[in-house]
């Protein structure tokens, strides 16, 4: 009996001992796990953006683009996010929607800007999408829904354009897991507070959109892809209460109104 205990202990020790020893080596660096993942994300993001660019109309109005970019720049600056990692694009479309693609591409529909009652609502949604990018949710979702091999074959040109179009459609019209959405909401509130933006309008935006009686309900793409809005609005309010600070406006009223005006012209 004694012999078996000794032998058993040695075997278990051998297993865990070698595991512990081997894990001291930085395998992630050796196998270039991050590099491969980054490269796939980079190619995939550019592919998907190209597909969207070819099928939708991109807004090139310098005032609109510059204003939205300045919002992103300020959020990045206050939250120590590398500005170059976020590539924002405005698309002329009535749908109230915004979504993130791999490699930091952030798509905002003009419908979202036009239906935001104030700049804080829009900034809240942008922060939420930046949070998805920064928390690497986009690639995680794609790997889960499509599979890594299909994604890699897309970047090497192994798949047809239909699959790429379908992927872009999926990213723009389906939600992340509930836990990932909550994580992005909380992170968005952190971003807003660091940028001295009141998070309450962001929560109000969710309340507003959860109301089906709202005039623009038919266009609420963003909300249909982001369920349980009331619950989300509630925990955003709850969380932001713990972080009270003085709030400021990011854009002047004139700049914001000019953006709305310019977009209405399209």
């Amino acid at each position: 009996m004694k012999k078996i205990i000794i032998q058993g202990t040695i075997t278990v020790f051998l297993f865990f001992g070698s595991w512990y020893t081997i894990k001291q080596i930085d395998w992630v660096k050796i196998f270039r796990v991050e590099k491969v993942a980054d490269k796939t994300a980079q190619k995939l993001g550019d592919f998907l953006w190209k597909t969207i660019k070819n099928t939708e109309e991109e807004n090139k109005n310098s005032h609109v683009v510059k204003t939205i970019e300045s919002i992103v720049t300020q959020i990045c600056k206050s939250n120590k996010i590398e500005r170059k990692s976020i590539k924002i694009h405005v698309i002329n479309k009535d749908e109230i929607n915004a979504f993130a693609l791999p490699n930091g591409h952030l798509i905002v529909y003009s419908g979202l800007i036009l239906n935001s009652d104030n700049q804080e609502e829009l900034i809240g949604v942008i922060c939420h999408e930046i949070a998805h990018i920064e928390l690497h949710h986009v690639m995680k979702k794609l790997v889960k829904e499509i599979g890594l091999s299909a994604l890699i074959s897309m970047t090497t040109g192994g798949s047809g354009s239909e699959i790429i179009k379908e992927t872009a459609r999926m990213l723009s019209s389906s939600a992340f897991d509930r836990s990932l959405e909550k994580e992005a909401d909380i992170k968005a509130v952190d971003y807003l507070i660091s940028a001295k933006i009141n998070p309450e309008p962001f929560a109000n935006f969710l309340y507003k959109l959860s109301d089906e009686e709202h005039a623009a309900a038919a266009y609420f793409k963003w909300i249909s892809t982001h369920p349980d809005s009331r619950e989300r609005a509630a925990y955003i309010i709850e969380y932001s209460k713990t972080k009270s600070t003085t709030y400021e406006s990011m854009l002047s009223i004139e700049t914001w109104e000019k953006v709305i005006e310019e977009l209405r012209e399209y």
Partner: protein
Amino acid sequence: MIQIKEFNYQPSEHETETASSSYLMSLIAIIVGVPLPIVNLIATLIFYLGNRKSTYFVRWHCMQALLSQLSMLFINSYAFWWTVSLIFKDETITSNYIAYIIVALVFNLTEFITTIYTAIQTRKGIHVEWWFYGTLTNIICKEKL
């Protein structure tokens, strides 16, 4: 790791064949067993149950094959579910995971080679006792039913 020992008696041709098959069972199941480690265990368990009233030599080797599969089940199941959670859940590949997979592979490979060697030796009527599993089998498997 493995020891060749004298068995109590000289097993017959039929006995060596059945005992050798118990190891081959775990090898045959390896194709399915890689993604679903439980299959290996079930294969050897069914074979053991089928031969539990057989002669001592056959029972002894069926038990050794079964026990070795049991510990591999834990190692491989953990590796399998860790990999699944990497793909479907909010986890990333870490050095810890890669190290585990390497160790699991080495243990599997060792077990695989030892199994083939033992299957060949057992077929020849040579009694092979593995480190730890052989000792354990000696305790569990008694000569008299």
